[in-house]
């Protein structure tokens, strides 16, 4: 994989540029919203990518709880981090889209609200990782990840019912979608998925290296009789 990385990076870059072209030029202009609607081609694929990454985090956490496999722990950490990055993109592009269309920066519509709650859950996961010390951090984090993932259906159903009782402006269109728009959307999703994979792979490598270095430091301080601080 290491050798393939540069080639894959270049291919992904090309794919992203092609996806951008699809989004800005090829896809037809939307009737009611105009060109601002093209934010959709970045907003929605980012959301889907974030959801996939959070699902990977759930899977890796379960594997870790069963097998205590360090590789699973690294995957859990990385997928949560990159997932939060993509989720942040969703939460920032959402208001940028809402403002010209609805005149308001934020709308408590179903999707945006659910995404916000998801973001909060996984940011709290990252805080636990950061603030927790000791060898059992991975297990504690994995437990939190499982609870967080189980929360997701509740988030979805509670907000959905709440919104049917108190409707708000809905972001993104419902109903049928022009095939050229769908095509642009899927191409962007593919491009961002490849991009996410490469970022995750790099972060995994960094984490693995970091842990090896930490271990080397630990060994060093164990073996060093003078006990000097480095």
């Amino acid at each position, binding site marked *: 994989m290491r050798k393939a990385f540069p080639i894959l990076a270049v291919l992904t870059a090309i794919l992203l540029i092609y996806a951008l072209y699809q989004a800005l030029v090829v896809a037809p202009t939307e009737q009611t919203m105009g*060109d601002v609607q093209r934010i959709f081609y*970045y907003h929605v694929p980012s959301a889907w990518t974030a959801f996939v990454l959070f699902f990977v985090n759930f899977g890796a956490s379960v594997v870790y709880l069963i097998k205590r496999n360090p590789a699973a722990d690294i995957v859990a950490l990385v997928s949560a981090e*990159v997932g939060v*990055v993509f989720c942040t993109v969703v939460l920032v592009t959402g208001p940028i889209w809402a403002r010209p269309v609805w005149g308001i920066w934020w709308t408590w519509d179903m999707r945006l609200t659910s995404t916000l709650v998801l973001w909060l859950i996984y940011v709290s996961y990252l805080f636990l990782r950061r603030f927790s010390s000791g060898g059992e951090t991975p297990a504690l984090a994995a437990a939190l990840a499982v609870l967080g993932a189980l929360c997701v259906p509740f988030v979805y159903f509670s907000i959905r019912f709440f919104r049917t009782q108190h409707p708000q402006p809905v972001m993104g269109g419902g109903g049928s979608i022009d095939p050229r728009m769908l095509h642009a959307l899927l191409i962007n999703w593919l491009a961002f998925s490849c991009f996410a994979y490469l970022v995750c792979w790099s972060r995994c490598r*960094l984490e693995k*290296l970091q842990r090896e270095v930490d271990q080397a430091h630990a060994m060093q301080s164990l073996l060093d009789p003078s006990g000097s601080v480095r």
Partner: protein
Amino acid sequence: MNGNPYLFAAYAVTWIIHIAYISTIVARYSRLKREIAELKKAGVRC
């Protein structure tokens, strides 16, 4: 495509966020490389 400031802002912000995250990875990686070099000099197997 007419220049729409919001559209541009959204796309720009997306990439700013991604590039910011990747920069943290790159920065930590360079720091690690330096640490590894130091450890190797100290004779630690790494």
